[in-house]
């Protein structure tokens, strides 16, 4: 699933949002891939990921997935997904993966120009890209952009619009901190690509917009 290809956002608020996906191919390198996926997970974990998991694990790190238990389950897996909130983490992970040379395909989602820059620094040559050409059809069915920036962090669409609106409201009223709100919203995304750090920033952004609006009105 191209579950990280269509994240909504601005160049500014996508700056610190990267997902990384290690994926075996069923005809090439899936057989006996467990130890290699474990090695890749270790490398991911060494650079302080915000979240990780995969659809077959049933839940993400943010929802309580235990790294060790997850690592043991990788003999039955075919992929590992992880999410980072800095370009330097991605740079370090790619450097370590290059050294480990597992032969498993690695996909990074994020700003294309940033990824190309990092690839050059690490000495990698990006191979193929899935470009996002936006949303078409009945766009009037969509919630507002600020909500989409949060809901599309779960590419499977499992984070519901009313939940985001409810959490944003509670953050506005001071009943939840942005951090608590982000943890709450990350729960339905089992793959571990919901970026909690970015969600905190987006919720804070909404708060500051509200206070600016208040200021302007006042």
């Amino acid at each position, binding site marked *: 699933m*191209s*579950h*990280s*290809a*269509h994240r*909504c956002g601005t*160049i500014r608020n*996508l700056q610190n*949002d990267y997902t990384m996906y290690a*994926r*075996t*191919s*069923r*005809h*090439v*390198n899936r057989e006996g891939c467990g130890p290699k996926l474990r090695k890749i997970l270790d490398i991911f974990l060494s650079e302080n990921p915000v979240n990780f998991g995969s*659809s077959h694990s049933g839940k993400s790190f943010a929802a309580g997935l235990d790294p060790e238990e997850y690592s043991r389950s990788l003999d039955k897996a*075919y*992929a590992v997904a992880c999410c980072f909130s800095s370009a330097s983490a991605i740079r370090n992970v*790619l450097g370590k993966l*290059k050294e480990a040379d*597992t*032969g498993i*395909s*690695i*996909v*990074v989602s*994020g700003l*294309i*120009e940033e990824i*190309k820059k990092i*690839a050059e620094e690490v000495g*990698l*040559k*990006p*191979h*193929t*890209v*899935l*470009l*996002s*050409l*936006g*949303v078409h*059809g*009945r*766009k009037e*069915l*969509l919630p507002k952009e600020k909500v*989409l920036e949060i*809901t*599309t962090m779960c*590419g499977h*669409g*499992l984070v*519901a*619009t009313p939940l985001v609106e409810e959490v944003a409201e509670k953050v506005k009223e001071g009943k939840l901190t942005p951090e608590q709100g982000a943890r709450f919203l990350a729960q*339905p995304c*089992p*793959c571990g690509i919901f970026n909690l750090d970015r969600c905190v920033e987006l919720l804070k952004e909404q708060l500051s917009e509200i206070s600016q609006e208040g200021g302007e009105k006042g």
Partner: protein
Amino acid sequence: MRIDPEKCTACAQCPDYCPVTCIHEGDGVYFMDEDECVECGVCLRDAGCPTEAIYMPEESNRYPRSIRAAFSDPAVQYPEELFPDLKQGGRGTEEMKTNDVTGNFPRGEFGMTLEFGRPGTGTRLREVEKVTTLLTSLGIRFEGSNALFFLLEEPERGVLKRELRDEKVLSIIVEFTLAEAQLETIVAALFEVLQTVDTVVSWGLVTRFEEDGSLPVTDRLEKLGLTVRPNAKVNMGMGRPIIED
């Protein structure tokens, strides 16, 4: 999915969790509009119903309804009886993620992905047929490595199995390859048909990077009126043995 009216205390906790907002209040209890429910499982897993009133009834696992969970709940694998030749060991297609070792999208061709119901609205499968019939009339072929293939009664004409047309899923991907020279024709035809679908569609294009790292297709796409997002999914070329051409 279903709510047991005997157990529901109308605490109002679950409706906000539903991505397609199909949980409603009525007669002192909450209920699901089962025709709209895509069986994504979020209410069951995450809403924390205090009385465990939410459950998956046996009917949800019966064909053709079983297609809903298969396409909406990432924890559910494609059932083997429906997808006999797929055996992907997972529900997602490898798509461009492993293109460095499979070469499924070579130079001279583009891949195209049309994700119906994404983001977050869901779609009836009949909406997909509007595009698959159009594409086959333009010479596009659907292949058995893609889950959509198994939903087609007549793959060469893009016609869906009749019993699936009214089923609703959270999202479904129409994925195909085209020759680079076909881009303008296909995009123009898709622009037109996408104005008639009763859902949203996230559109994507797969291409190889040029030797110098550039992506010349972006100019062509923008001339066609398509805006290319600054963020994308990049295969870093780390799979081995690598396919260079």
